[in-house]
């Protein structure tokens, strides 16, 4: 949920929000394509995949979006506002897959480990989601 970032004033707390995208197993390939397209179009955006797993008949992908440092957030800095706009855009773009705020997964969980691996190699997202869709 939070991490520390080295800035000019030393370590600053950074706020990240978790966004869960939960397509049904049947929609997983389409959802993977949509997520990949968004991530590709926003290479500089502070978004990362932090979890992939299943829940019931859904494949759940958790994205972490960095809103900014607490200083930027309380001051309403432009970068923090842009991050909020990006969260809104993500929700709008992925509306078919029930995007919802969620807590960030435990870094030691299996979902988080898969998510971290996929975040390093985003091209594996579709494959991972399809494999999990088969288990869902």
């Amino acid at each position, binding site marked *: *949920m939070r991490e520390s970032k080295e800035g000019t004033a030393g370590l600053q707390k950074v706020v990240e929000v978790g966004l869960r995208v939960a397509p049904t197993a049947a929609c997983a390939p389409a959802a993977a394509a949509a997520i990949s397209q968004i991530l590709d179009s926003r290479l500089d955006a502070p978004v990362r995949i932090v979890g992939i797993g299943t829940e019931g008949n859904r494949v759940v992908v958790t994205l972490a979006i960095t809103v900014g440092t607490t200083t930027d957030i309380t001051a*309403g800095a432009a970068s923090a506002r842009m991050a909020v706009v990006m969260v809104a855009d993500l*929700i709008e773009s992925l509306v078919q897959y029930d995007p919802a705020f969620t807590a960030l997964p435990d870094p030691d969980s299996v979902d988080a480990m898969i998510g971290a691996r996929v975040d390093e190699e985003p091209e594996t997202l579709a494959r991972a989601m399809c494999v999990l869709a088969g288990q869902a």
Partner: protein
Amino acid sequence: MSATTFGVESTSGMPDSIEFDDDSIVTANHRVSRRIPDMVVGDLTERDILAMAPAMVCDRIHWSTSEPMDLTKLIADLPLEARSRAWSDGQSRIWVDEGQGQQARELIRQWCTEHDVEVMNMRVESAVPFRDVDSIPGDLFAQLLLVTTDWLYPRTFAIRRKLVADLELIDDEDTRSMMYLFISDHADRFDADRVGKNGTLNFATFMLGKLRKWPQDAARAAWGRTLIDDHMHLNQAIDDSIATLHRRPTEFELASRMKTSVSDLRRRELAVAEVSGMRNYDSIISGGMGEDSVGVDAADCVDVSRDGTSFQVDAMLTKAIIDSIMTPTSSRGISPADPMALAAVYLSFWGELSRQELAAELGVLPKTAAASVQRVTSQIGTAGIL
């Protein structure tokens, strides 16, 4: 006043004696500080004014009534000398000469019965200090309170911050008048003849000492002594653990530090959390809106857990939240895409932070953080999502 020499214990690492200018003093913590000046009203010093109502030792009888009670008639009917003075808590108080407390209580009880006045929790405090400030002519005493408040108010920022942060329904603008009433209530207990190592205690110094415990006492009065003490000790134990372990303590470590069992620790934490939940009651959790809402109002037949975690409901709620955050509220000067609102709502409901923790996380006042959350939840409620 000439230069003064103060003796300081050599074990503190300081010289055996230090000479200071007229206004310098050594505090109880061995810090050099400035003497707080005596208050002055017109040509009269605080000592002149308070000398008009010398300190006495009395027995005090105090009680509560369901309706405000005029004590003038009661005092006139009592066969012994009695005095009264209103404190801001609205309780009835009468002071009588030392040793007459029990007798006065029975007389007062009898009088109340005869006059059909319902009294509650009547009790006697023996040998308490009292000043009959009504005997001070004109508005001198009120002026003294005002001058003292004016002097103390700008110098007690941290105390006022804590008061506002800890207690609901108290705003910054309330604190000045509350401080005036606090000083008025405590004026009885000021002993102008008390002598310490820095000389005689003056009125503002005495009040400053009392004000340091004001937020804690006010919280105890509002939420109960046991609960506030538990809250304080829990936070203190967690802070101490973080300072030594550099991490949040486990339940076992916390219980050990508090010299209690884990089950007792859980019971205390639950009690504190329940009150914290009441203090930070929010419509997004209960589903109710406005002053008429009463707690959680889900019907028995609804599977709250399943309903609350369903993907569609979560998505709808998320959409409503982000729409609210993206909506400008020009009336309050908040522009669209409010990152503070997003961070506050997210950390409250998905980060599971209490209002106090949220405020600490964001480095703002609890009320500021709560206002951000409230703005979003109010808009969602207005939109009929909840």
